[in-house]
Structure formats: C-alpha cells, structure tokens
C-alpha cells in the first residue's frame, strides 16, 4: 500500500468513526423526542407513569397507573408518534429519491401526481359519504393510478429525454386531477363535506390508529426496500440517463423500480394522513447540507431526519394552540424559514 492509499484508508476509518457516532447521536435524539411526545400534551403524563405503562404493555409488568393514563398513552399518543416517525421518514426518503432521479433539488414526492391522485381519490370518497377505510383505499389507489398514467404517457410519447417527458406528463396529469378536486369541492356540501375535504388536503395525524399504521406498514417497507438497497446506484441516476447507462447502469430497469418504490411509499403515507406538503422537499435538502449528496449516507439521513421533523412538527401542532393546526400548514410554516436560514448560514451547497 503506498502512502496515498494509506492516508486515504486512514481518512476512511476516521470518517467511519464519525459516521457511527453521528448515527448513534441521531438515534438517541429520535428516542428522546419520542418519549417527550408520549409524555407531553393536554393531559401530561409523568415519565414514571409512562415507563410503567410501557413496561406493562410491552414487558407484562404489573400496571400501577390509572386506566385513563394508559388510554392516553396507548390509544391516543402512541399511534400518532409511530405514524409521525413512519410517515416523516417515508416521505423524506421518497423525496430524496425523486430529487436524484429527476436531477432537480426542487422536486418533491408529488412530482408525478401521487398527491393529486390520492387527493382526488380521498375527496371522491368524502363526497360519496364513504367510511374512513374505503376513503383511504381510494386515496391509495388514486395515488398509484395517477403515477401509472403519468408513466404510461411518458413511455407512449417516447421523446428524446425520458426524464423531462415524465416531469411534463406529471405536470399535465396533476393539473387534470387538480381540476377534478376543485370540481368536487364546488359540488360538495359546504357544511360537512367541504371542511372534511379541506382538512384532508392539509394533512393530519389526529385520527390515526395503530390499525391504520399496521395496514400501510407492509406497503411502506415494500416501497422502501429498493430505495435503501439501490441507494448507491441513485448517485449514478442523478448524473442523467445517458451517463448512467454509459457507466453500466440498466436505467430502463432501475428507473421504474425506484419510481415504483417511491410512489408506493408516498401513496401509502398520503392515504393514511392526507397530503402533508413540504416535508419531502425540504428534509432531503437539510440532510444534503449535513451529510453531502452521496445516497449511501443521504438516504438514511433523510429517513431519520424526516421522522424527527414530522414528530417535532406534530408535537407543535397538538400543543401550541387551543385548536389543532393542520400539519401541511405547520410543515411549511416551520420548515420554510428554517430552510432559508440554512441556505443563508449553511455551506451554501444545495444543488
């Protein structure tokens, strides 16, 4: 081994040590925020009571706290905390993936019309007066259907640049679906349905149950698996179709696989909680500022940071005011100024 590679190997070892401690730190922060989120709220729960409830439920220890405390922790707060972690991480990972695939840092998970499709599905469900489960199913299918249409149009048009074609098709299909949502809003009953529609389109975790989380979790994991496993290859995808192919990547297989994964994740998330905007756009940026653009680190960082961010925002949403603020409003209200501050104060390398 010559001197240069020895130096490089030493640097790699030091980097790895830094990376491991950063990962441990991030994990600890996530855990602490989760505990805080379980304890804080309209009905404060002490840490001792919280420990007892969790010990009782998870380890079978004898219960020593009153039943209402257990209900608050297990039925109200735990589902929200789990959902915030899962959805925040999922939307951010999907956003990071789309930004790489479309070589554009301004892209968010709904670039191919997932949110518009899911929105139309859910709004249709609300308009028809369906119960919650069919509304969620309609939203999920709407999201997948919208992306399938966009991808089909992209294949049929066969222009020179496949990526640009997809983006343009996404914009056009999104506009049609948006028109459909607007039409249903006009037709909807303004006293019951319209507020429900508006609330859904701004996203909320307030009515999430552990059953909901359990139902979408398999789809989330199925969608996340290719993103995590193929994350180094996303670096190559971000160089553009032709360059990636010249370097030996089968982009005609890899691109649909990654789009399908990111779409599945986003559709599952949106169907459970409604459209939570901004997070999939902003979190990958913050992650990129912290760990650089290499997806080997960027994707895990986006997952963790997204989980942390949505948990924190949801905590603010349910404790800050007397009424609960929809998440879509808060993610933008908290995220955008923070993002601008990072842009001005950070290293200035965004894309």
């Amino acid at each position: 081994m010559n001197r240069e590679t020895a130096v490089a190997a030493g640097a790699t070892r030091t980097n790895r040590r830094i990376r491991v401690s950063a990962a441990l730190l991030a994990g600890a922060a996530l855990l602490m925020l989760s505990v805080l989120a379980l304890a804080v709220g309209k009905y404060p729960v002490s840490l001792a009571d919280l420990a007892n409830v969790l010990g009782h439920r998870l380890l079978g220890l004898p219960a020593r706290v009153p039943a209402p405390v257990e209900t608050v922790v297990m039925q109200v707060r735990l589902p929200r905390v789990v959902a915030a972690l899962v959805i925040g991480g999922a939307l951010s990972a999907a956003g990071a993936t789309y930004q790489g695939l479309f070589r554009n840092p301004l892209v968010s998970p709904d670039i191919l019309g997932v949110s518009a499709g899911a929105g139309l599905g859910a709004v249709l469900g609300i308009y028809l007066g369906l119960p919650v489960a069919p509304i969620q199913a309609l939203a999920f299918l709407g999201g997948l259907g919208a992306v399938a249409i966009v991808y089909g149009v992209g294949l049929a048009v066969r222009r020179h640049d496949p990526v640009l074609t997809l983006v343009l098709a996404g914009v056009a299909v999104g506009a049609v679906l948006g028109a459909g949502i607007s039409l249903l809003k006009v037709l909807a009953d303004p006293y019951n349905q319209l507020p429900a529609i508006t609330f859904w389109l701004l996203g909320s975790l307030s009515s999430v149950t552990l059953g909901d989380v359990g139902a979408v979790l398999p789809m989330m994991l199925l969608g996340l698996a290719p993103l995590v496993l193929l994350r180094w290859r996303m670096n190559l995808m971000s160089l553009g179709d032709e360059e990636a192919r010249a370097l030996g990547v089968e982009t005609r297989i890899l691109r649909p696989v990654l789009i399908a994964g990111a779409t599945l994740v986003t559709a599952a998330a949106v169907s459970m909680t409604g459209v939570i905007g901004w997070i999939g756009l902003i979190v990958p940026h913050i992650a990129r500022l912290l760990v650089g653009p290499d997806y080997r680190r960027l994707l895990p960082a986006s997952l963790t940071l997204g989980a942390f961010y949505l948990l924190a925002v949801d905590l603010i949403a349910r404790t800050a005011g007397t009424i609960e603020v929809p998440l879509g409003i808060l993610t933008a209200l908290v995220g955008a100024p923070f993002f601008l501050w990072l842009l001005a104060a950070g290293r200035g390398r965004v894309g």
Partner: protein
Amino acid sequence: MLLRVEDVAYGYGERIVGSGVSFDLAAGEVLCLLGPNGGGKTTLFKTMLGLLPARAGRIRLDGSDVSRLSRSGIARAMAAVPQAHAAYFPFTVREMVVMGRASRLGPFAAPGHADFSSAERALATLGIGHLAGAVYTEISGGERQLVLIARALAGEPRLLVMDEPTASLDFGNQARVLGQIRRLARAGIAVLFSTHDPGHALLCADRVIALHDGRLAACGPAAETVTPALLRQIYGVDVVVAAVPGIAAPICAPVID
C-alpha cells in the same frame, strides 16, 4: 481486434445522420475522429457505446455484437468520457470517480475498500490525487475533465471513448489531456477521441478517421491523412500543414485573408 465497426449507419429515430462507416481499433492504439460541427461525431460515439441502436451494420467489441451485450458488459470493456459538465449535486471528486466502478459491482452492492483504492489509483495516474476530497462542482473545467477521465479509468476498461476531451480546456490543460492520452496508450489502453483541432490529431493520434456528409472521408495514419486537401474538404477552409524544426508532429493552421 478490440473494436470493429462494420458498415454502420447511425442517427436519432427516423433520421439517419451517417452511414457506411467502418474502422477498427486495437489495444494501445490512439484513433482520432475529425469532423465539422453537427457532422455526427457524438451520434457515432453514442451508437458505438450502445446508447443508440445502430441503424445498419454491426459494432463488435472483442468479437461480440454490442447490441447483445448488457450495459455493464459494455462498460467493463469500453468507458465513455463525456465533455466536462456541471453535476447537479455537489459530489466530492472521490465519490464521482468511484462511480466508474458501477459496472464491476452487483446491483445492490455499494463500493468497498478495493473500489475506493481503484478510484485513488486512477486519480494518482492523472496526477490529481490531491483533488480527491474536493467538491466536483467547485473545481475548474480542466480539473473536471481530468476527473471524468479518472472515473472512466477507475472501471479498468481496455478502451476509452472521449468526446471532444479538449473542447472546453485552456491551452495548458489541452496539452495535459493529450499527453495523458499518449500515456494511456503506452499502458495498453485503446483510445478513441474526437476533436475540432486537426493539430491534436497530428500531435497524438496513430490513425485518423474523418467524417464528411455522413460518410468516412478518410481513414489512415495521422501524418498521411491530415492533409490540406482533406481539411479543405471537411471544413471548407484553406489550411497549411507544415513541419517545424524541433517539433515531432507537423503543425496545422488555417489561412486567413
């Protein structure tokens, strides 16, 4: 023969840009492609690399038809060096160069220690080892071109295809890249490059092919092929090609009235 192009026609979609192109390339040989703007040099390269389908004829890499090889199979033998460009994300030079290892890794694999060593070696070969930690989007155009050559070398190919490697470089960097091409050839790598400067062909190529009106106008050893007559034919200007004492290759300059 490492690369054999047999009576190939090339173009985008329905439009045929050129046809009847045949040539071959052996290990350790430097072949230069000359041709006017819009003459189809880049399209021909993309067709050779299998990025565009050949409209007619056959491209053989080590005897195998390129259209039947996988992307990674092609990339392992033949690496492309694009013109220096701006990346969209601020990768470090090391991260950029190690991407040249993609064709040698399984689909789910990430580069390991051996791959990073290959990347460092490629950087050292080009004399830019000190740039490994720099950010690709923040270095100069000349350095980017060298980084892209290093990325191609990291995959340990036997053939390099370089599309106008000197196009956006200053005088000094042009000379450095041309010198690098000669060194790679001495190490047994075959190089095919295109250029707008016939002088570069005379300086550094063993053989020259010239495209004119979608046909091969010439093909042969550099010193015999780059003549005022050929340059007049493909560029439409009068050119003087003259030997100068003290310089191995003749120099070449347009006549301006």
